């Protein structure tokens, strides 16, 4: 039998899928909720998330996206992103592995935790999970051994919630080992959240019955069965309790005592059909067939797939026959034969649909994930392949098999996404390489031309020059280019005039040149401070752009040098990854087919059993019809 991965659904009996998902969620949620024992935070409140990566994991985990959560957590561990949540992350990883169906990995992780120095509550948690897994695998002795490491008597506030589930498991383990008396003790002593109190009480009642304390057990269950309910969950538990009591008493031959318990079960709840059937039988046992008809007729028109309804098709005419209304009984037996025949045909069609692989197709194409998927399945239109699906999904083994099928489908989808992406990566790398090859020569030339060093040297030289001008008060050093030209022309004229023979005209010209020279010097000297200020300002203003230019040039050089890193070295990795993706795809496809075949076999077994049961009912109906004809003295086949 495949492993169970429920957190609390630890018995081999069938579970409703939604409750199963809720259980997984609830139990695992407490893993990360029990982080901060030192601060005495309530256990159902998360500790403050101090690593972003851990918060990301929780975001996926709380949405039951276990694959993503596990993947992200392992990545965060590998990259050292968990500075504050390292220890509890390992516990969370173990719990999530369990939820994702990775029992072996979960076991290894919990065992590894037990070999490390961890806080007592983390150790207890690990032992609890190991115990629960052992129990799920049908090894109650191992479960008991694991639970023995936990001090169940330690009831400090921070541990209260986990102790409650540990004690609950302890009680179940005792019962499974045949220690009903110890189980009674465990459930009697159980302390925990109020919303789980009823379950402990129910289990106590059952344990009492198992230990031979029949009266006490019935009394315990009776009390629970009439306890006021506030919500659907409590109502469901009341129904379950009363139904159990009713059938227990009915089997003990105490029909009169059983009847009120069936009446306590809600008429619209999921157990109502069974309660109606039981109520009718309680009346019939007391030979009150007229009374028995009331619940049985209510049941008679209900869902034809329901086994209780199918039984009522026989029970109602049986009651009429007992009341002497043979004609009505004959009529109803004939209707029952037709109904059973229809049901047998529907089952044949469902089995044929299985053979054609339509059930697996439906299971794989129904949208949604986690709990929402089960809702989607419940809403599917009724076809031969979906007609019995919900009933089959209520069975634990079938449900686990379907989960694995859906997980494999999820793996297949993920691998296909990666197959497409890796192809894109290849193109991307190739495009980058081509683009680099095309642009590299031009970029190289541009970078060569980008002579920022010369500009920097020029800036430094100008700075030095200005310092010298300032130190020497050299106003000429700050002449404009026009003034320098004029100065040069005046010097040239002066030299020419010096070479000319002396004459009045030459003297006049020399005076004129000297005046012009003096005027120029005067202007430069007079303007020196303003020019010096302006020169310094201009030099300062060039500093920032020059720095920016240097930085840009350095980045451009760096980008040019590192550009090949955007494509070099990736080719081989991408090729390897693509190959691994392809290999995994092949494995997933074959495993998916095998799992589909396994589910088909499970479904075939279930439907075949149903078919045989319906055939048995059909034989009974025909036999009863013949007997009724006989009793009423009617010829077989006559109209009533």
């Amino acid at each position, binding site marked *: 039998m495949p492993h169970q991965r429920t957190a609390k659904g630890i018995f081999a009996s069938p579970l409703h899928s939604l409750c199963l998902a809720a259980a997984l969620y609830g139990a695992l949620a407490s893993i990360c909720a029990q982080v901060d024992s030192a601060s005495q935070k309530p256990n159902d409140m998360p500790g403050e998330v101090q690593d972003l990566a851990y918060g990301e994991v929780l*975001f996926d985990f709380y949405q039951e996206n276990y694959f993503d959560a596990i993947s992200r957590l392992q990545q965060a561990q590998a990259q050292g992103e968990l500075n504050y949540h390292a220890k509890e992350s390992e516990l969370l990883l173990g719990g999530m592995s369990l939820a994702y169906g990775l029992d072996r990995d979960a076991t290894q992780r919990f065992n590894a935790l037990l070999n490390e120095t961890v806080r007592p509550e983390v150790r207890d948690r690990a032992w609890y999970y190991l115990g629960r897994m052992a129990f799920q695998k049908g090894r109650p002795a191992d479960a008991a051994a694991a639970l023995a490491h936990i001090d169940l008597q330690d009831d400090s506030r921070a541990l209260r919630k986990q102790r409650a589930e540990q004690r609950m498991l302890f009680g179940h383990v005792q019962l499974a080992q045949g220690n009903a008396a110890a189980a009674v003790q465990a459930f009697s002593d159980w302390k925990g959240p109020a919303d789980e109190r009823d379950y402990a009480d129910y289990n106590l009642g059952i344990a009492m019955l198992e230990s031979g304390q029949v009266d006490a057990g019935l009394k315990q*269950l009776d009390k629970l069965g009439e306890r006021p309910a506030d919500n659907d969950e409590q109502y469901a538990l009341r129904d379950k309790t009363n139904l159990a009591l009713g059938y227990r008493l009915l089997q003990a031959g105490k029909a009169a005592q059983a009847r009120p318990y069936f009446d306590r079960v809600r008429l619209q709840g999921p157990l109502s059909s069974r309660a109606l059937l039981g109520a009718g039988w309680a009346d019939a046992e007391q030979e009150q067939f007229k009374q028995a008809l009331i619940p049985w007729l209510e049941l008679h028109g209900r869902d034809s797939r329901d086994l209780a309804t199918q039984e009522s098709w026989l029970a109602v005419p049986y009651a009429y026959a007992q009341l002497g209304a043979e004609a009505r009984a004959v009529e109803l037996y004939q209707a029952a034969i037709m109904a059973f025949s229809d049901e047998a045909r529907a089952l044949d069609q469902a089995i044929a649909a299985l053979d054609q692989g339509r059930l697996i197709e439906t299971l794989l194409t129904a949208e949604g994930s986690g709990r929402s998927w089960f809702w989607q399945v419940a809403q599917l239109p009724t076809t031969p392949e979906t007609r019995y699906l919900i009933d089959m999904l209520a069975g634990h083994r079938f449900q686990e098999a379907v989960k694995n099928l859906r997980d494999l489908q999820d793996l297949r989808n993920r691998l296909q996404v990666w197959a497409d992406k890796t192809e894109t990566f290849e193109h991307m790398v190739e495009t980058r390489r081509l683009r680099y090859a095309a642009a590299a020569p031009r970029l190289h030339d541009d970078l060569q031309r980008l002579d920022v060093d010369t500009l920097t040297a020029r800036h430094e030289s100008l700075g030095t020059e200005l310092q010298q001008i300032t130190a020497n008060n050299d106003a000429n050093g700050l002449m404009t280019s026009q003034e320098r030209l004029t100065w040069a022309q005046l010097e040239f004229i002066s030299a020419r005039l010096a070479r000319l023979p002396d004459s009045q005209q030459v003297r006049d010209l020399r005076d004129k040149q000297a005046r012009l020279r003096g005027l120029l010097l005067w202007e430069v000297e007079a303007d020196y401070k303003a020019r010096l200020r302006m020169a310094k300002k201009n030099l300062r203003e060039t500093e920032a752009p020059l720095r920016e230019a240097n930085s840009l040039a350095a980045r451009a050089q760096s980008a040019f040098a590192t550009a090949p890193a955007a494509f070099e070295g990736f080719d081989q990795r991408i090729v390897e990854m693509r190959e691994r*993706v392809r290999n995994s795809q092949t494995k997933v496809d074959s495993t998916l087919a095998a799992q589909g075949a396994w589910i088909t076999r499970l479904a075939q077994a279930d439907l075949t059993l149903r078919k045989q049961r319906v055939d048995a009912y059909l034989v009974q109906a025909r036999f009863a019809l013949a*007997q009724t004809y006989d009793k009423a003295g009617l010829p077989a086949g006559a109209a009533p």
Partner: protein
Amino acid sequence: MYASGCLCKTQLSEAIKMTTKPTQRYRCLTQAWRGVAIAMLLCLSCSVHATEAPQSPQALDGQIQDLKQEVLKLNRELFALEEELLFPANTQISVFLSLDVGGTFALDSVELKIDDKVVTHYLYTERELAAFKRGGVQRLHMGNLKAGKHEVVALFVGRGPEGRDYRRGANLVVDKGLGPAFLELKITDKASKHQPEFVIKEWE
């Protein structure tokens, strides 16, 4: 037997499944009917054995566990490759969202702009909001940004106190260095029990 076996919280609905045993309940029928029913039951038990699956489900389960581990490992390596290719560390920016509010604000959507360009617009589901409330942190955006100053603006839309429509923004100028940048958009009502607070925090 209906009253056998203990019950966990999650097992409650096991009773939905019918485990009717026709022969037990038809004890009131005639002896001849009983004979037929018993014969049918014997027939059923033979058939059940005949339809048992030949392949070991344990082996298949082990195979599935191996495969899940294999794909998990591959998935991690592929994510690392993708990150290196698409979001190199020197340009990478990641923006996260966390929510720590009571009844003061119900988030509907977030719009994220970087340098006046919308990079993400996200609508939230009930499941996501529930995950936030339990400490989950969402990676809202992952992208590339050049070194230097950039303005990040987040617009939060939802329902505020008393169910009124509520739109609030938060902004931050980030000086992006050469390493990856991590920002967290935080919605909290820790400071005030009556008003939510919207902040952008830069992680070192």
